[in-house]
């Protein structure tokens, strides 16, 4: 181990689960022979056949809709949306069907499907291929939401997602596929819904997820040189949200920054900031600071792209300002 990529960890999670459960099927554009736009499903069609790794036409609404019907019919579909940017055309199937079926039908049936997709900046892919749209999902009751930052979570969270009784939107980050790390698939994973705290400090808490975890860790390194000790929380899942872990550390430190690559207004950072502000009010020395995507589309220009979302510098700068 030690040198597994995020991409390979995801593939292994799919493959392990497909071996264990014959009802798991993958369905999406280019998931078969092409191996997925980012290579995650490479080889799976050879291993499991075209009846379980199903290449589709470019029909996102119906891909999600077919997954809904398949999940209601006893399969465990893992649908793939090539870019989270395309979620807009699937929101009806996702939010009005997948998310509400259990409730509308009085609990008769759940929709245990996964929508795997990827988002974020980092490839000069422009305004329609670089977004972080997890807020739409988090705002939709009935949908679970997992966003792995690490190789280990790529594996474990995906495995866990595939065992959920309810629909899970699983958002990978395009800039993380080639990152490497240790994949321990023997020790039991942290429970579903539990945040991870990879760095402990007493001065402030940085709450984040997905690629921004790594930026936060970089910021924490710089800050340490200035004598500022940050606690970093990687949420891993946004629904369920591990408010207990957040509270524990924010009450201890008295200061919090929330970091999200999605645009700031009405985004995940807003929810986290609002939640921390209400839960930890008496402990806060400073307002909860939101470091998030700018309220703008993403440019193809690399310079503008990089500056459209949080950077390690900006996170560190915020922390220094708080503690100065």
């Amino acid at each position, binding site marked *: 181990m030690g040198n597994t990529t995020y991409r390979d960890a995801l593939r292994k999670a799919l493959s392990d689960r497909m071996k264990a459960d014959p009802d798991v099927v993958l369905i999406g554009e280019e998931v078969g022979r092409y191996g997925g736009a980012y290579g995650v499903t490479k080889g799976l069609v050879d291993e499991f056949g075209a009846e379980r790794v199903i290449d589709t036409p470019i029909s996102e609404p119906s891909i999600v809709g077919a997954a809904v*019907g398949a999940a209601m019919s006893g399969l465990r579909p893992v649908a793939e949306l090539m870019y989270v940017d395309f979620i807009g055309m699937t929101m009806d199937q996702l939010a009005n069907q997948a998310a509400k079926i259990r*409730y*509308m*039908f009085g609990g008769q049936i759940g929709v245990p499907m996964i929508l795997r997709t990827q988002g974020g900046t980092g490839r000069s892919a422009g305004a329609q291929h670089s977004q972080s749209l997890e807020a739409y999902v988090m705002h939709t009751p*009935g949908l679970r939401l997992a966003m792995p930052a690490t190789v280990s979570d790529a594996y474990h969270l995906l495995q866990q997602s595939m065992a959920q009784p309810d629909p899970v939107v699983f958002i990978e980050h395009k800039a993380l596929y080639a990152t490497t790390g240790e994949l321990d698939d023997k020790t039991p994973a942290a429970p579903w819904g539990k945040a991870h705290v990879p760095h402990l400090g007493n001065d402030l808490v940085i709450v984040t997820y997905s690629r921004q975890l790594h930026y936060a860790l970089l910021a924490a390194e710089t800050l340490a040189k200035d004598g500022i000790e940050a606690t970093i929380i990687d949420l891993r899942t946004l629904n369920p949200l591990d408010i207990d872990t957040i509270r524990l550390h924010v009450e201890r430190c008295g200061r919090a920054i929330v970091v999200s690559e999605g645009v700031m207004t009405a985004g995940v950072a807003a929810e986290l900031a609002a939640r921390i502000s209400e839960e930890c009010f008496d402990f806060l020395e400073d307002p909860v600071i939101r470091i998030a995507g700018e309220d703008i589309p993403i440019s193809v220009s690399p310079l503008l792209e990089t500056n459209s979302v949080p950077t390690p510098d900006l996170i560190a700068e915020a922390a220094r300002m708080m503690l100065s």
Partner: protein
Amino acid sequence: MRLQTNSRLAAHYHLMRRIRTFEERVGELFVRGQSAGSMLHLSIGEEAAAVGVGSNMRDGDTFTTHHRGHGVFLARGADPRLMMAEIAGKETGYCSGKGGSMHIADMKLGHLGANAIVGGGIPSVVGAGLAARHRKSDNISVAFFGDGATGQGILYESMNMAALWHLPVLFVCINNQYGMGTRIDNATAAPDLHKRAVSFGLEGAQVDGSDVETVAEVAGDLISDARSGKPGFLVVDCYRFYGHARMDKSPYRDETEEAQGRLRDPVAKARQTLISRGEMNDESLDELDRQIAAEMDATIDFAADAREPQLDSIFDDVYDPSTPPPESVRDRLARVLGRARQA
């Protein structure tokens, strides 16, 4: 035994009459102020679509419907009392009073759900078809929807997938000539809807929805083709006898057209045919109708007497019961302000 004969038509008449009468009672439920809201879409005039297709389906087959789906579900064996209770928003209803008329479903009878989104239930049958293929079962899945849903792109995506993957799926378009106030010729320049399906590689057919025997025959063929992996698309031509929903008096239709349209009555036609063939007579049919009327009358009382869902069920079934329900705003408030409320 209610039926005087065992003919298929007699059975179809029975089912169609039950649908007709049920829908009339839904109207009454509304008038009595007992329905949950006024978004009640009656399928009167469309009974042959429901029965002609539904009677060719088997146990284990699944289906989705649109918002005007009471008839289809009855044709597939629904208990009208539980339907009426659901339409009234009561706890004993099919969906515990959470769904209502537009969101009735029953997994036991293969009803994957009615839908208030035009076209929303269509791609589900693609998934159900994949599941059937996966299990190597010979079940099919049928999507029922209106002519209006042919405006929704998702239909064509789903048809394309069904044809590409040879899925055991049938698309049934109940063309009652209107989507709300829009007549089909104001919604498309090409009203021969089944031809679209052919252009995607499905079998396509169009039938006269006033004649349940024809509907059943054509549907039977399409369904057996679907079972062998050749998906189809069936347009059942009929007429929406009344308004779009309970409040709509169809001011946008002219009277002659309505009068003509209502002549295309599959229930009346079946009745006449039964009589003319000597299979039943007015008396036996009247007797049957009376029995059905009594059964359906009882559904109103059943629904009216049923209790509303308990307020504390409001957080149930957002997620699987094995996981904690969402925290209520009130609980959050109390907790956040640090003053646990006294119940």
